[in-house]
């Protein structure tokens, strides 16, 4: 009834061989099979953004992608980008600004914010508060009211633009 597939992929720089059911979502594979629980599950229908991860450099919803689709792919999760230090400044800004309360949305929010910020680095224009709000509008946060998140992302945008200009 359920078919299994062998897949090989790179997760946070590590080669992984998986044997997964065809119906298994990427986020379930990461959480259940690899115990990478930093990617969260809020809705499993593509609305909340808690499951956000990067596949081949693109931000995707881990609940809308199947694990088998990631055969041969490069997958990065919050644990991976934390360890590489890629978003250390953003994480620091979130902590100082209290841009998280329960923290459940935070891994997805950080990856989504990083997507915007990476487009605007190297002397690029600093996104406006409205730009930031629009960009993170696919990620639910039920705790913060977003204002602090916008503050934190804005602060990093300004700092990064300053550093690179």
């Amino acid at each position, binding site marked *: 009834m359920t078919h299994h597939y062998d897949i090989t992929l790179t997760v946070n720089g590590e080669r992984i061989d998986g044997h997964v059911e065809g119906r298994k979502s990427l986020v379930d594979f990461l959480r259940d099979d690899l115990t990478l629980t930093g990617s969260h599950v809020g809705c499993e229908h593509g609305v*909340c953004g808690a499951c956000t991860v990067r596949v081949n450099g693109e931000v995707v919803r881990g609940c809308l992608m199947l694990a088998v689709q990631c055969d041969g792919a490069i997958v990065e999760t919050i644990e991976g980008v934390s360890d590489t230090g890629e978003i250390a400044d953003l994480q620091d800004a979130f902590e100082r600004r209290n841009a998280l*309360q329960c923290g459940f949305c935070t891994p997805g929010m950080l990856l989504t914010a990083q997507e915007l910020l990476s487009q605007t680095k190297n002397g690029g224009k600093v996104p406006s508060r409205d730009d930031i709000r629009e960009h993170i509008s696919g990620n*639910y946060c039920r705790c913060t009211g977003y204002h602090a998140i916008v503050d934190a992302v804005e602060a990093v945008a300004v700092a990064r633009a300053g550093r690179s200009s």
Partner: protein
Amino acid sequence: MKIVSDLPSPLTALDRPNSYIGRAVPRPNLKRLTQGRAQYVSDLVLPRMAHVAYLRSPFAHARIKHIDKSEAEKARGVIAVVTGPELAKVITPWVGVLTHLKGIKSAPQYAMAVDRACWQGEAVCAVVARTRAEAEDACELIQVDYEELTPVTDPETALDASTPVIHPDLGDNLTFERSLDAGEVDKAFAQSDAVVETTFIFGRHTGVTNEPRSIVADWNTGDQRLTVYQGTQAPHMMQNLFAKHLGLEEHQVRVITKDVGGSFGVKVHTYADEMAVVALSKLLKRPIKFVADRLESFVTDIHARDHRVKGKIGINKDGTITAFEIDDLTGIGPYSVYPRTSGIEANQVVNLVGGPYACPNYRARARVVFQNKNVMCQYRAVGHPIATAVTEGLVDLAAAKIGMDPIEVRKKNLYADDAYPVTAASGIKFEKLSHHAATDKLLRMMDYKALRANQAAARANGIHRGIGFASFIEVTNPSAAFYGVGGARISAQDGATVKLDATGAIFCHTGVSEQGQGAEAVIAQCVASSFGVSLDKVRVIMGDTDNTPYGGGTWASRAAGIGGEAAWQAGKALRENVLAAAASILQAKPDDLDINNGVVVDKGTAKERITLSEVARICYFRPDTLPPGFQAELVATRHYVPRNWPFSFTNGIQASYLEVDVDTGFIKLLKHWCVEDCGTVINPQLVDEQIRGGIVQGLGGALFENCLYDERGQMLNGNMADYLVPMAMEMPDMEIGHVVSPTADSELGAKGAGEAGTAGAPACVMNAINDALRPLGATPMTEMPFTPGRVLRALGRV
């Protein structure tokens, strides 16, 4: 501030080293959340753990004639298929009533439906399997023979003789009723220059915590203990309930709460499907995990609000409010939720309507009725948004009727800041509120005059903007008067145990818990300040009934005011103990010593005498060198409960500036302001963010959130795509200000701040919309959420 006086130092509490009260220090241990290394219950895996999925009733009301589970039992991965009657042998039912809510009644509720399902989504059969997916697969193989019964859905007709009674033993569908008549209401209305009457309607909405409800129960038959990992706000309360209904002693149950992905009151209740999990673990003798999926969350997480309130206000031409009258009707689902009851919200509405205003004439009735819909219970700011919207909506309509500025009407009627203590018409007692100071501050922050000018200029260009206000009162720091007096075993007191470890650092074990509010930081700030160490030397332990003092947990904005005070007192007590030990080592008098930055110093001169790590080393490892008869006590515990006032009432005022697109009905929020008085502000950043988060939850209720049901009791929008919550793009920037009136009930003087935002936001959005639309002759909007369709209807355009 009062916290100055008890400290031995000539410096004030805020000047001392290690004074963290009032400082926006970052929360400790946030890195685990930002790095994806938190431990939510949904992340947890235990050896031999199995997963449960529930087959849920597709009908709002149906008799369960027969369940055929034979096919499901044979399915791959299935460990057990358990029906309601089978589970009822393991766990007893409960009734959600409290004795101090006179006349409240409810029916026994079982962990799973026994012979009848009373709402769409009630669990009727459980499948335990190796994986959740296998459990869900097997659910599809269960055959249930239902006989559909007539559902009761409309609160307006729930009490009619022709409506079936959901629980025949109770006689009717009335859960709870309360009436109040103060002053001379009829006379006041008769003598008023104007009377305004209208009906306010509040949609049903729900919490939508980002992490759904999650629980792992582990009955270990070897040591006869149940360990429950649960994302709950009240671990000790749940310990008591699990023990009680499984027939265990409390010491056989341990509840552990680590990271919780949002709560807002949703996770402070007893859920039948979670009670079923602990029972299944006991039955099957292995760990069982249940994580609600989002679709289940919508039909089983408590819903809230859903009130229809007829309101009436009297006013004189000079702006004096003469009387308030309300009639509130609310439907709560088929059961009053255990153990807090579903009567509290309506009760709170009766308590709070008219609250900020010195008007002695007030009549109220509230009726709470059963329905065949999901249960309703306490959600963030219980009853406050209803009471505030009714009160403030009426005040604005009255102001418009006599042609007075809404702020002038408020200033004329708000209790004077020097009037306290005050007993309001509803009978509740206010220790100290600051409505006028808060209003003045708000008007300065928003530059009211300039904003009115901006509004007028925009209007001249065909842009319709509105300004709305809402004064509010918030109930925080509940004493035993909230639940204890009604017979619920929900601790009103809280405790803190602090200990000096062998290296000079402090451990603080507290009964309050963390769901993101920052309670951990606040407790650390209190202990570090009162004991005298830097913040990084304090480790806070919470959320474990085996390892924390018995306490209430975190709800009703009690963690800082109650848990913080206990921690403050415990820190002081430990300081005395440590100074006694240091004095004995140094052959000095304890009174001549103090602790600064982790070092015992001479009081006054701050000359260093001995480090804490050295005191600890001697006391733990070389007590033989201490004088005979001296026993060092490097642990201290203190408890705290408010005694002089049943609640710390806080107050504040919010303002909203928004724009209505009269062609599409869309509302754009431009800016939001809030001034709040939560007494001593322990951590300004955390308080501001609580208020901001609360405002957005209030804005959600005002503009988007609504659990839609059809007449058969089917929820129509039980998913995140159809149930709208605020997203970043629709939300405004929010400016927060403070007025500080500490409560005299505690040394710290801290009141709560978690409900404030939610309490006032819907009312001030409503008033702002009506302010924007009034010149266009629109019908005043009083039905939430204020959807584009409703806006266009109010304008007569559709």
